[in-house]
């Protein structure tokens, strides 16, 4: 009886241990913080495939508005709270956080094929050659225009036109009485809103954010020329209330057939050519961004990427998820479920080499050309000390970029002159850099 009891106890202990171990394994839950856009939502939909292939891991999603996401993940990572196991971050954060040791290097082992990632995107997400965030989708900027309107006006748009030519075309097709505006550009204040476009303009006019000694150059003659051109162009041939328009507002205007030319993120190409969303889907053509004195930095480079914070308690599971979501196989999985036109673009060479993708995405070659031509390490005519095309990859830039954006938006709305706007922005930037100890 005694021995039976011992056996029973031993069995019970073994069973309990087995159950506990199994539960511990099944309980690996990773929380992914992400932004709400089409590609990320698709990833959420396909997560059961990942969970099926990895029975011990459950994925929980937290979808946030872009600015809230930035604030939350910054708070989480800076305080090492470990609330999120995988974070969606951008090209701006990846090198800064990598340098500070807040992120785990991406585990690119096995069949991940890191070299397949487009070089400019890989470089933008790395610090000292180590990849700290795996790109989920990447983008540059390009010209999207109504070929019917441009043709009717007897004009033509080509790759790398001059800004003066773009202004002439905008003038020729501008017809507010019919509800058609010559050009739509970002005007809403924000370092990721109007300043993304304005910075590429300033770059192409020969400007830069900082000189080699980190002294701001926002009121330099190049910036003045670029911003004056922008304010004049958008004021004369843009839609009313342009100072409050950003990506979504311009997308809505373009899809409604109210914009002749729109210069914005390459990701927009998939929306404006989708007949379910756009009234002008069959009338759109693409070209590389215009420039003034240099092509350097005339189109931006951005990527949304997945990163693993050092504070995560589930590093192995998090790395596994990141590898899955940014792999070649994932892209094939999306293609199988939704078609090649819906796959996340701007990340891998292999996507653009695929004939099915080339056939499904009319914008593929223009997008690839734009992404490949952007170089975050050489984006200004004069030498600059920072990395980034439409931003400078330093922590102080968010505040400087946003203040400058507010000033330029104010100038566009007529609240101040361009000179006043740039001088105010320059003063604010100088103060910020001095306080941060750059000089």
């Amino acid at each position: 009886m005694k021995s039976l009891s011992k056996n029973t106890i031993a069995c019970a202990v073994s069973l309990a241990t087995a159950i506990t171990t199994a539960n511990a394994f099944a309980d690996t839950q990773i929380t992914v913080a992400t932004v709400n856009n089409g590609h990320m939502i698709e990833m959420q939909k396909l997560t059961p495939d990942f969970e099926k292939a990895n029975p011990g891991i459950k994925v929980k999603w937290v979808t946030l508005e872009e600015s809230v996401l930035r604030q939350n993940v910054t708070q989480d990572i800076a305080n090492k709270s470990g609330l999120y196991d995988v974070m969606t971050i951008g090209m701006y954060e990846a090198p800064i956080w990598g340098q500070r040791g807040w992120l785990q290097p991406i585990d690119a082992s096995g069949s991940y094929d890191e070299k397949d990632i487009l070089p400019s995107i890989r470089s933008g997400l790395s610090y000292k050659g180590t990849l700290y965030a795996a790109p989920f989708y990447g983008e540059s900027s390009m010209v999207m225009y109504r070929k019917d309107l441009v043709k009717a006006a007897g004009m033509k748009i080509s790759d790398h036109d001059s800004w003066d030519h773009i202004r002439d075309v905008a003038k020729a097709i501008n017809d507010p009485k019919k509800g058609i505006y010559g050009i739509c550009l970002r005007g809403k204040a924000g370092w990721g809103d109007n300043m993304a476009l304005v910075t590429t303009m300033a770059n192409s006019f020969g400007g830069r954010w900082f000189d080699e000694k980190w002294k701001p150059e926002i009121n330099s003659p190049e910036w003045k020329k670029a911003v004056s051109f922008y304010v004049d162009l958008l004021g004369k041939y843009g839609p009313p209330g342009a100072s409050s328009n950003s990506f979504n507002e311009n997308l809505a205007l373009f899809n409604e057939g109210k914009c002749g030319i729109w210069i914005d993120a390459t990701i927009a190409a998939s929306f404006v050519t989708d007949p379910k969303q756009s009234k002008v889907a069959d009338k759109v053509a693409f070209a590389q961004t215009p420039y003034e004195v240099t092509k350097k930095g005339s189109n931006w480079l951005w990527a949304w990427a997945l990163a693993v914070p050092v504070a995560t308690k589930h590093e192995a599971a998090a790395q596994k998820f990141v590898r899955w979501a940014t792999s070649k196989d994932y892209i094939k999985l999306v293609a199988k479920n939704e078609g090649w036109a819906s796959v996340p673009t701007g990340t891998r060479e292999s996507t653009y080499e695929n004939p099915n993708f080339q056939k499904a995405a009319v914008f593929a070659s223009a997008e690839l050309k734009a992404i490949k031509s952007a170089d975050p390490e050489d984006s200004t005519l004069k030498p600059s000390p920072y990395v980034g095309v439409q931003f400078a990859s330093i922590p102080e830039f968010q505040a400087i970029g946003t203040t400058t954006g507010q000033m330029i938006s104010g100038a566009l709305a007529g609240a101040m002159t361009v000179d006043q706007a740039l001088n105010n922005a320059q003063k604010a930037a100088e103060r910020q850099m001095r306080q941060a100890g750059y000089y």
Partner: protein
Amino acid sequence: MTLNQQRKLKTLITGLLAWFVALLLFFPIFWMFLTSFKTELQAISVPPTLFFEPTLDNYKIVQERSDYLLHAMNSVVTSFGSTFIALIIAIPAAYSMAFFPSKRTKDILLWMLSTKMLPAVGVLVPIYILFRNNGLLDSRTGLIIIFTLMNLPIIIWMLFSYFKDLPKEILEAARMDGATPWDEMVKVVLPLSIGGIASTGLLSIILCWNEAFWSLNLTASNAAPLTAMIASYSSPEGLFWAKLSAASTMACAPIVVFGWFCQKQLVQGLTFGAVK
């Protein structure tokens, strides 16, 4: 014009004005409701589309993408939980200040109100660190604590006003009959001010239900209430107004229905003591 006609005209004008203001206040909610049945393209069309074939697709998408029941349950637990705890603390506090005021009572009341004058973002980092150190991040307990602290000054102030309006003679009569302070509060004050307590509670529930700042900053996947669910539908790249409207309608619906059923108590409580 006779006096009677003048009176009728005045009533008519007041009525029309009230209807105009009511419709003006209701219009954004109506527009949100309408937009939730549009396609994304119809939602952003200029001029706005008024006549369209309604679709339930947005509701279907919200159901598929969000764990609505989890978010709704988090909203219910945190709103009701924090209101209950706040009332437990506020009733004795307001009672003592209303019936046994000291020299400093006014100062204490003002100090409590002054805590509401500080912008919440000013204390975000210390609160976040406290929550992290105590394991309260992304927990319902954490949200209940912060909601309780957030609404306590308003609840004490409202209850203080209700209690102040009670005739002191009733309490004196109770004391003559040998009632202790506890008896006074439980058997006399509470039954007499139940309308006021109910309306204060309702207001607190509504404030908690609609709170977004702390909910977004202190929760992630487990304790996020409906306000966090709404925020997840705003998109930086892509059209989202129709889906956002559907999510907002689903988030507002329970509290609107709740408010509808309790409107009598709410109006009664809020106007209590307004006319003497």
